[in-house]
């Protein structure tokens, strides 16, 4: 790692921040979706949806803005990744549309069949979205075949190799854990007691996936582990990640749900930082033919544009953080069903 923080590296970090913001924020509402069908009664399901009601939409904006920032800062990556992962992305888009619509439409009719249909769509689209996001991450880590002109040279099915699917399943497990903790934080009474029981199961599920993925990465994905091997101090991040996860059951046990949620956020942040460090300076690793990889240097916009965009980010991101914090503050506390609920 160069000590010099050039514009390209800054934009690598900023795009990373946007996608990490997306993973941490939309991660819990995707997780709530994945857990949705484990609840039984209509009231419980309404509580689940209303727990994320005021925020899920804003959470998704992190993905949209992350996509826009990727387009602006690293157009080559935007072009290669989205055209290369064509069908996978179309499926993700359809899943995200269905999810938005399921949340919006479920409450509009009282009929049982109507609500069951949207409950099913909500859960399925949440799981499919999480899985596809994970598969995309897995492919970025593993590397995809690129031509000399940086075009994708594989096929849709070649994206579904075991390592990518493993990262996909791990992502679903991670979001379910995160979502369960969020639900405990936002609910009380019977539903909270029920979800509290799920938290440990989701943690165990995630740890099994995480350990498997880590072993697979160490064995088969040397490009992701080189940086950390060269800088052993970075191993502390992995340790921090494990400590944060271990802290979750402790906080839940003491009834400090907000701390548990923060722990979960910290664990995700550590995980994503490790991922980013593993990738850098590559944005898309070409496997085979690493020489064709897209890096923060050969995929970037002009320094002029990166500079302008940095000004936009410096003006805009404090506002974004301010909005986000105020919305979460206004809607803090346990969720209650009212006339304006879903």
């Amino acid at each position, binding site marked *: 790692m160069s000590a010099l923080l050039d514009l390209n590296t800054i934009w690598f970090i900023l795009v990373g921040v946007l996608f990490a913001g997306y993973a941490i924020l939309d991660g819990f509402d995707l997780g709530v979706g994945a857990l949705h069908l484990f609840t039984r009664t209509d009231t419980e399901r309404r509580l689940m949806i209303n727990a994320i009601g005021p925020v899920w939409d804003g959470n*998704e904006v992190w993905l949209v803005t992350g996509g826009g920032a990727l387009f*602006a800062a690293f157009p080559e990556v935007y072009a290669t990744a*989205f055209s290369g992962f064509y069908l996978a*992305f*179309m499926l993700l888009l359809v899943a995200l*549309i269905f999810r938005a619509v399921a949340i919006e439409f479920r409450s509009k*009719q009282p009929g049982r069949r109507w609500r069951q249909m949207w409950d099913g769509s909500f859960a399925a689209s949440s799981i499919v979205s999480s899985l596809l996001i994970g598969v995309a991450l897995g492919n970025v880590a593993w590397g995809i075949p690129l031509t000399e002109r940086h075009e994708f040279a594989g096929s849709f099915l070649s994206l579904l190799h075991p390592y990518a699917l493993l990262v996909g399943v791990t992502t679903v497990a991670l979001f379910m854990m995160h979502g369960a903790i969020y639900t405990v934080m936002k609910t009380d009474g019977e539903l909270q007691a029920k979800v509290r029981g799920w938290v440990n199961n989701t943690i165990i599920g995630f740890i099994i996936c995480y350990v498997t993925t880590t072993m697979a990465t160490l064995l088969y994905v040397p490009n992701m582990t080189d940086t950390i091997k060269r800088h052993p101090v970075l191993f502390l991040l992995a340790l921090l990640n494990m400590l944060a996860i271990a802290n979750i059951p402790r906080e839940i046990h003491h009834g400090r749900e907000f701390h548990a949620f923060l722990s979960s956020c910290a664990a995700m942040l550590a995980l994503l930082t490790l991922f980013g460090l593993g990738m850098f300076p590559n944005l898309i690793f070409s496997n085979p033919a690493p020489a064709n990889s897209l890096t923060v240097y050969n995929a970037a916009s*002009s320094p002029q544009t990166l500079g302008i965009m940095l000004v936009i980010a410096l003006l805009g991101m404090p506002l974004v953080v301010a909005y986000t914090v105020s919305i979460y503050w206004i809607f803090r506390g346990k969720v209650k069903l009212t006339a304006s609920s879903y």
Partner: protein
Amino acid sequence: MDVLFLSRLQFALTIAFHYLFPPLSIGLGVILVAMEGMYLKTKNPLFHHMTRFWVRIFGLVFALGVASGIVMEFQFGTNWSAYSRFVGDVFGSALAAEGVFAFFLESGFLAILLFGWDKVSPRMHFIATILVAFGAHFSAVWIIVANSWQQTPAGHHIVMGPNGPRAEIVDFWQVVFNPSTLDRLSHAVLGGWQAAAFFVLSVSAWYLLHRRHTEFAKISMKVGLVVAAFASLMQLATGHSSAAGVSRNQPVKLAAYEGHYEAAAPAPLYLFGWVDEEAETVRLGVKLPGMLSWLVHGDPAAPVVGLRAVPPGERPPVNLVFQTYHLMVALGMALLALSWLGLFLWWRRRLFETRWFQWLLVFAVLGPQLANQAGWASAEVGRQPYIVQGLLRTADALSPVVGAGEVLTSIILFGLVYLLLFVLFVYLLNEKIQHGPADDETAGEGQRA
């Protein structure tokens, strides 16, 4: 069917569907600010019920706008990767600015609008309404900056990038204020105001005709009518200014608008007609001779650049551009007449008694929607065969790795999903309108009326 045709079809389908919703959000944002502002000023509970009713409609419209908008954000990369590589430095910046400055503002404060009635003070709620309306307009600003740069590129230079030539920003403000930005922004935003105003008018007229929520409907109608009459009148100015801009910056497009072929001759203005592209002439048309020359140059005898000034390979599909443009203009005139007729009836105190006029208003909701769609179609198709005017051809902008089969699959997928969404949207909209403004706290409002 080739990839180019299919990719264009997919873009047309997804943008047309998406564009049903943002104009309504833009306009309803303004109308909500007016309604809630009047409530805070007068404390008349009727305005409160109006605000709550239209906020619920706004929520539905916004949700559909977001759901269909996510596709737009990524579609440049999926289907138009060569375009993305070429314009990312310029176009991507505007798109990212839209996310940072508009989307977060809109989606964040929308939560307060929808769910915050009991969580924040009325004043804070009003501020949230204003911020959401601002967000909707900021969003229009940045996306129209990006799109206008495609029409009239400025502030950039072409350099050799890692994968061939690409456009890079030289002067950010020249990109933002490229020659067509302001004309197109004002025209599109007012189109949004018209869409929402006629929507409000349509629902109000329907209530009046069915003698339901009449007090609510009368005030809503007045608010809607003021906005509709103002926006429709202003569209004359922005429409004229846009056309004058097109004549300066994209003369071939203007020639296609009017089916004007002769390379340099005085040009008429057609009220309607049918362009025979084989014979390079307009059939069955009614024209005002010299009118286009007069509008563009202030002189009915002045020559106007025609389609023959460029080789056939440089011309857009003329009849499609001609028809969509004329449809937009005709609808714009009809909406102007309708809204000012409404003001006249209001002045003569016959607005709430004239049933035939109310029936016209019920159906007039379709007018701005059709005009907005037709206007965008003529603007975008009129730029063909270029995707970035003069710099990049649409045929050279595709994703080289995406095949016709994949595009066809995604078209079918989106086609089915959008059809379902549209049916559900209309169904739920109808439910909300049938249900009316009277929720728990306003029960009995119907009797009082």
